[in-house]
Each structure stands twice: as structure tokens, then as C-alpha cells.
């Protein structure tokens, strides 16, 4: 069943169109930066962007910083919201279940498919970012990269930091996916599930900035989303990254558990 889900994912034009669009935006940004040479001042504009003009190798991180606030969560929420509700809407859910495919097995396969999509999307953006950064912004002949703290990094250092960043952002997106996947087992409308997932993110983003919500801030799903920037400081302050992983893990476990509990017992009337 997992193989079938992956074949469905990779065989669908929409998968590639959405990933293509995700990759397009950072490229557009890189082109503008390269042509004008105007970088946002430090502390303004998308994360890390002020640092990339000097060094294109930092652009994968900047590229993910560009798509992270909106595009990536939208793409992941649409994909995960579609997973069960989309089958319900196309009328194929009932035929899968009477094939028979066990409900738990179906849900696991859907989860794996969403994880694969998330990883594919994050890696594609990072790879496009790297290529765009190197070719458009250049490496300015430097072998080392300057961190946000002003120290220098070797290419090997930069490589593992970028790798950890990809995993961290991927895991944050799994948090988004589990919200949408849970909603996808509640409704037969993929649109409702995806929008519901986004509504949770928007609410969280609003509450994070609200001082009055300080009591719950540290438990909100988007609270530590940008903590991966810390990976480009020296030495790396691991506190926020660790907290972010734990918070996301909490959401993933609870929501996937709820999705399973709901889907394995509900009446399928679609």
C-alpha cells in the first residue's frame, strides 16, 4: 500500500507543479539580488537574506527562509489535507477499504506519502537554492562562510548545518502535516482540511506575537519555526532548536494518534 501511495504521489502532475512553484520563488529572489546587488539590511526582510550577497552558499538556507512562512506550509497542508479527504471526495476511499486495505495501513501509507512529499519539497528548495546561489550570487572566491555571529565556517561545517536545517524544517512541516491529516480524517472535503490546517498556523502565528498570550506561547506550533537560524550562529545555541523539535513531536504524536483513533472507528459514508 505504501508503494501504491508513493506511485500516486509521484505520478500526479500536481506534485511536481507545486514543488516547481516552491522552487521558483527563491530563484526569483536570487535573480533580483544578483541583478541589483541590493540586500535587505540585517534584521529586515526575509531571514538570512542580508548575508547571502557575500556568499551564495548560504542561499539554500535563505531560500527555505523565504518559502517557510507561507508557501511551504500551504503546499504541505494541501497535500496532507488531500490525503484521506481527497480519496473520500473522488469516491475511491470506499473502494480502497473494501479491496480490502486495513484502515491503519491506509493511514500509515498516507502519512509516509506526505512525509515523502515534505522531504522532497524541502530538499528541492534547498537544492535549487544552492544552485541559484552559487550560479547567480557566486561564491566570491571565499572558501569559508561568515556566520551570523561573525566567525567563519568551513564548507564541511556549512554542509552539516544546512543538513540539520533541512531536517528541522522538515520536522516542522510534519507538524503542519499532522494537523491537516487529522482534519482530513474528519471531513470529506480536502479543501476544508487544508484550510483548517492553515487556520491553525495563522492563529498560532498571531498568538506568538501577542504578549498577552505569553503563557501558552512556548507551546504554539509555530513558536520555534525560525529557530533553525540559530544553526548559522557560532557556537550553535541549541536551546530553541531542541525545544522546537520537542513541541513539534508533541503535536505530531497527539494529532496522528487522534487521526488514527478517529479514522479506524468512523463510519465511511463518502
Amino acid at each position, binding site marked *: 500500500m505504501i508503494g*501504491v501511495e508513493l506511485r500516486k504521489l509521484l505520478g500526479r502532475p500536481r506534485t511536481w507543479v507545486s514543488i516547481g512553484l516552491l522552487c521558483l520563488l527563491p530563484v526569483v529572489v536570487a535573480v533580483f539580488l544578483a541583478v541589483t546587488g541590493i540586500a535587505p539590511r540585517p534584521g529586515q526582510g526575509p531571514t538570512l537574506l542580508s548575508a547571502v550577497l557575500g556568499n551564495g552558499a548560504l542561499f539554500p538556507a535563505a531560500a527555505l527562509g523565504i518559502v517557510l512562512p507561507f508557501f511551504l506550509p500551504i503546499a504541505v497542508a494541501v497535500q496532507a489535507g488531500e490525503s484521506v479527504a481527497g480519496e473520500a471526495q473522488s469516491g475511491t476511499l470506499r473502494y480502497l477499504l*473494501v479491496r480490502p486495505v486495513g484502515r491503519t495501513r491506509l493511514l500509515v501509507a498516507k502519512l509516509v506519502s506526505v512525509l515523502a512529499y515534505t522531504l522532497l519539497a524541502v530538499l528541492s528548495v534547498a537544492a535549487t537554492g544552492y544552485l541559484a546561489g552559487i550560479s547567480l550570487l557566486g561564491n566570491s572566491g571565499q572558501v569559508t562562510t561568515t556566520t551570523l555571529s561573525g566567525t567563519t565556517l568551513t564548507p564541511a561545517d556549512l554542509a552539516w548545518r544546512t543538513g540539520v536545517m533541512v531536517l528541522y524544517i522538515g520536522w516542522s512541516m510534519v507538524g503542519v502535516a499532522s494537523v491537516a491529516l487529522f482534519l482530513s480524517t474528519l471531513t470529506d472535503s480536502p479543501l476544508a482540511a487544508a484550510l483548517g490546517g492553515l487556520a491553525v498556523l495563522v492563529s498560532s502565528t498571531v498568538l506568538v506575537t501577542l504578549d498577552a498570550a505569553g503563557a501558552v506561547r512556548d507551546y504554539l506550533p509555530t513558536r520555534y519555526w525560525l529557530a533553525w537560524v540559530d544553526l548559522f550562529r557560532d557556537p550553535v545555541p541549541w536551546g530553541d532548536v531542541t525545544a522546537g523539535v520537542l513541541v513539534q513531536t508533541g503535536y505530531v504524536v497527539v494529532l496522528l494518534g487522534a487521526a488514527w483513533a478517529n479514522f479506524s472507528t468512523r463510519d465511511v459514508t463518502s
Partner: protein
Amino acid sequence: MTAREHDPARRPAPTTGGGADGDAVVVTRGLTKRYGRVTAVDDLDLRVAAGDRYGFLGPNGSGKTTTVRMLLGLVHATSGEIEVLGRRVPRHAKDVLPEVGALVEGPGAYPHLSARANLRLLDAAGPARGGDPLAPDTGSRRTRRSRIEAALEQVGLTDVGRRPVRAYSLGMRQRLGLAAALLRGPRLLVLDEPTNGLDPRGIAEIRDLLLDLNRRGTAVFLSSHLLAEVELFCTRVGVLHRGRLVAQDDLDALRGPTGRTLVRVDDVDAATRVLGLPAARTTDDGLLVLDDLPVPEATAALVRGGVAVLEAAPERRTLEQSVLGLTS
């Protein structure tokens, strides 16, 4: 059991009609489904024997689809028991369903894929065999291609090529849904409104296909609100009304004689005069209805009175009259 023995084409044709409980393919006892305060299905005792062509009749909203979904383990019963092919559902659904082909509330397919690609995905999604390791591997990967071609041929969809299902007509989608149900050579077909969207010729083709499968041993449970369809195809009929089973009998019993006789004569006016009302009445198409007048005496009287008797036959209820009588 080998796959060969399992092939429905090679099994001896079972006798139709009810039998011992041992050869029942669907049995429900006290099956009830409530949605909140609405009782969709109420205390249903169904019995479908192996080899039956069972017509599950009822008006829209009478609980047919809910019942079908419960038989397939999609909807959970509030109370009552279900046995399909001798095993409890939903507990043993994964053992039973590989031998059941189903069409529920219209076909479902991925619109961007062709018929073949859809069937390939569907077939690959499920297990090759049921939970029993000795069960026939009717879903095997080895036979997938040939099973898909055979199913498409059975429903008359071989020439569709690579066109995506998006471009199909409703009738073609319905045929694809049937092909999906036939993919594993099931022992039981559960079909909900299978001729929906088909033209008259398509309906006849599908009926012939189902009759052929039934002759080779496949039991068919056909849920429909179309009386004519059930009357032409089924041997047994269950009538559902507001969630309750109001009749379950052989088709011939439901279409039983009314006790009246219809007589065709050359001169209806003369005939009514000879017999004298109210014993004799006429139908819209000019037949004489004899209520309690014995046929031999009536015909003798008519002949004596100079009226020629062309035909005399007992009047039978139509299925429609029976069902409307039961559900009004």
C-alpha cells in the same frame, strides 16, 4: 484450495433459492443502524443463499445503501450481527472482502489516470489473499495484468486505451466500477444501483454479464430502486421500507396470482350483458375480470350467449403492485 478450484467458472452451479443456513452468503440478524435519533436501518434479518440473485428493493432513503455499507464493513452497526460468506463482519472483514466484489453508490476512480492504471493501483493496494494463508491468491501480482484485461473485456471497456477517466461518460465510469468489482473473481457481488447511467443496451449487456457470472456460481446482491431491473434479473427479493424489511421472498411468490381471472372476448359489451354486473368487470385494455365467478361456468355462459372466448388466464400481481402495496 488452489486458485483453480476457486475459479467461479469451474465451480458447480449451486441451486437457486433458499437452503440450509450453511450455504448462505449473507445473513444479518437484528441489524440496526442509528444516526443520532434517526434509525436508518431497523432490525433487519436478511438471508441471501449461495447462487441467489437477490434484489434489495426500496425507495430512495429507505436504508439500502447504509445496509450495503454495513455488509462491507464501511459503516459500523449500532446493534445486530452480520455474516458474509460465513464469517462475521466487520471483525473478519479482511478475510471475507477479498472474495467480495462491490459497487457502492457509484464508481470511484482517479480522474487523471486511465482505466487500466486505476485498476492496477486498486489491485496493488490490497493483499494478494485473505487472512487465511490457504486462501486463494486472487489478488496476486503475477496475474494482475491478465485479470485486468479480463475484467475490462467482461464489461466492454477494452478499447478505451490511455484516455484518462476524466474523459469518460457516466456509463463508462459505471463499467469501470463493475470491472473493479470483478477483478478478483468474487464469490459474492454486492452491487448498489449498478446500471446507473447506462443506456438500455448497456443495461442489457450488464444484465447478461451478471446472469452469466451467476450461472457460474457467483451470488449477486443487487440493491436498486428500479423495480423493472429487479423483476428482470432477480430470483429473490427483499423489500426495505423506512429501514425495515417488509418482505423477503422468491420473486415468483411476490408476483403471485391474485385469485382473479382475466378473460379476453370478441365483444366486451355483449359479454358484460351476458354475465351481468358486478360479477364481471372490464380492465382498461378490454379484458374481462372475473372475481368470484368460476371460470368454466362463466365461459360456458359466454359461449351460450354467443360471445367468443379468445383467452382466459389467472391474473398475477406485478412486482410493482406488490411493492407499492407493502411500502405505502
